[in-house]
């Protein structure tokens, strides 16, 4: 069972908070600068996590972040140049407590990392999770994932592993089938988070990605819990 209530946003309590995240009365998500946060009661605790997006060029890292932040505008592709950092505020209910999670997504591209040495070190510094992204229509990007996850275990922060598969189409067959995903999940003990970033629905956009955001928060929460219990075990 997950500590985070995956359906909480749709509950009466969740719904009562959702409007704080919208622009006025529209269903468009509000974007926050570094000096701002949603106007929730200050009693609600805020927890910040840094997530580094990795994966081949063109798999959809930038689109995923845009989707999760509610800022995705177009499906045009331009390679990401330099570092783009996006803060996403997400309210979750953990056991019986509401927590405001601030996810800091650090997005760059393989080419930027290759060209400029400071980019990789800035992205890896004090990172809480590595988010490896592959695309369901590109088998080689999926085969890369174990390698991507391994490159990180060396970093001293022991970041959590998040794996996201983009361009997921639940009703048609993908290049990567269910069995492969299952095998991967069992072997590496991570659940693949599936998303179709380009899809938009009539529902308010926040509900469209609530599953994915809750899943990410859950992974981060479990990592913290493990970390704490290890600390307690040592003393």
């Amino acid at each position, binding site marked *: 069972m997950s500590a985070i209530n995956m359906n909480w946003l749709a509950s009466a309590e969740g719904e009562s908070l959702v409007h704080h995240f919208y622009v006025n009365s529209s269903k468009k998500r509000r974007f926050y600068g570094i000096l701002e946060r949603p106007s929730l009661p200050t009693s609600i605790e805020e927890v910040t996590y840094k997530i580094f997006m990795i994966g081949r060029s063109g798999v959809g890292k930038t689109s995923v972040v845009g989707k999760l932040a509610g800022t995705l505008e177009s499906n045009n592709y331009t390679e990401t140049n330099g570092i783009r950092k996006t803060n996403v505020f997400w309210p979750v209910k953990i056991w019986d407590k509401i927590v405001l999670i601030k996810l800091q997504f650090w997005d760059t591209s393989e080419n930027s990392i290759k060209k400029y040495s*400071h980019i990789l070190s800035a992205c890896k*510094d004090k990172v809480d999770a590595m988010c490896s992204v592959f695309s369901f229509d590109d088998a080689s990007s999926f085969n890369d994932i174990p390698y991507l996850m391994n490159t990180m275990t060396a970093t001293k922060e022991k970041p959590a592993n998040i794996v996201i598969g983009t361009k997921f189409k639940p009703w048609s067959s993908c290049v990567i089938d269910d069995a492969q995903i299952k095998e991967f999940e069992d072997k590496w003990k991570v659940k693949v988070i599936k998303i179709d970033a380009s899809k938009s629905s009539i529902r308010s956009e926040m509900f469209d990605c609530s599953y994915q955001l809750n899943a990410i928060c859950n992974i981060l929460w479990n990592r913290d819990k493990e970390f704490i219990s290890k600390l307690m075990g040592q003393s």
Partner: protein
Amino acid sequence: MSVYVMCLTSSGGIPLFSRQKGDNDTMTFSKIASLNGVHMFLKSQDISLLSTDLSDMTVIWKEFEQCIILIAIASGVTKYILDKFLDATFGAMVLFTGIDEIKNSKNIERLKKDMRLCSSIIDSLMDCLDIGDKISTKTNIVNMTECIISSENILLQTCLEGFMEYLDSIYGCVLVHGCVAAATEGWWSLDSVERKLLTIAITSESICTTYDIPVFLPCKSPNVAFRLVAITLINHVQILALCGPNPELTEIERFAVQCWKSNMDVLCTVEQCYPRNLPASVSLDNETLGFLLVNYKVEKFVLGRNLQCEKNRVIGSHRLDILRTFYHQAVEMFGLSVEHKENSDEKVITNAWKFTGAKETYLCSEYHKCHAVKHNDYILCVLYTSVVPTHTMRLISQKILKMIFSDKQIYW
């Protein structure tokens, strides 16, 4: 109406990219090749081909660094502006790639790929051109920095300077909805193309909290990259800074919070100034739809709107882009003349505007009237409704000038 821009290598005539805007046919490869062919042929005869006028279009050619040919075709755009547009386009190519890579690239495919990085900037530059195809909410000008005047600009300036000192950099500005509200002296010392490209580099991207983008400055530093750091303080208000390898991005953010958090209300007030772009103390009469105030020495401008009119009128009558057309076609053509100063040791040619001709000019059309008046280094162009009597335009324009230049709170 439309605009095309094409880029080829000088030596091989290999197309690197081509972009276009408007309801036009795509440019075929054979057309691009013949346009380039004419230029190349004349070059072999020691003739440099600059431009040609078709019945409805202008074509201009320009070679950069003896290695890149840019060709632009447009309708409704003056040659002067088209030339500026090509300078800015070449600048955009240098911005993310560096001059060295462009000059000495052995691998054309890689260069083509690198050029794709700047395509959204080139598209935004085309949006600055006056091809009258759509009523956009924003009217931008390719060779000038867009500004916003608020009563808080002085406070912002002080705060920005403190912040820049910490970054150990002299190049910084505060952007409100993409318009400069305050900037350091160093920022104004950058070439106008550089200023334009740096702001477009951020505003043409989809929104995010913080950017850290390596950039080459086409004039000041074409070989060594700076970091262009942009931080969103509150939604629609960003600080831009050019810095070296240090401090780290997280450090910069932390300091930005320290520096700006006590000024939240100031930031919110400035944000509210948009899209009027003027402080509350400047009020416009009913028949004044808006104005364009240009500092032609510094190459910056403000577009002030009368929101009251916007509410009362049918959509489309409130076209501030008319002011841009008026400025390019009447003021730049008749009021100002270009003075070419050639600096032989540095091999740079600077075009400095020197005011010569008329001090005032006006235009009357069916729906609008425009009036322009010069005041020191400034030119004010005002868009009036057609009901305003022609002879009173200059009185109202003078009144606006007085309002802006006598108020000590107004600083830009």
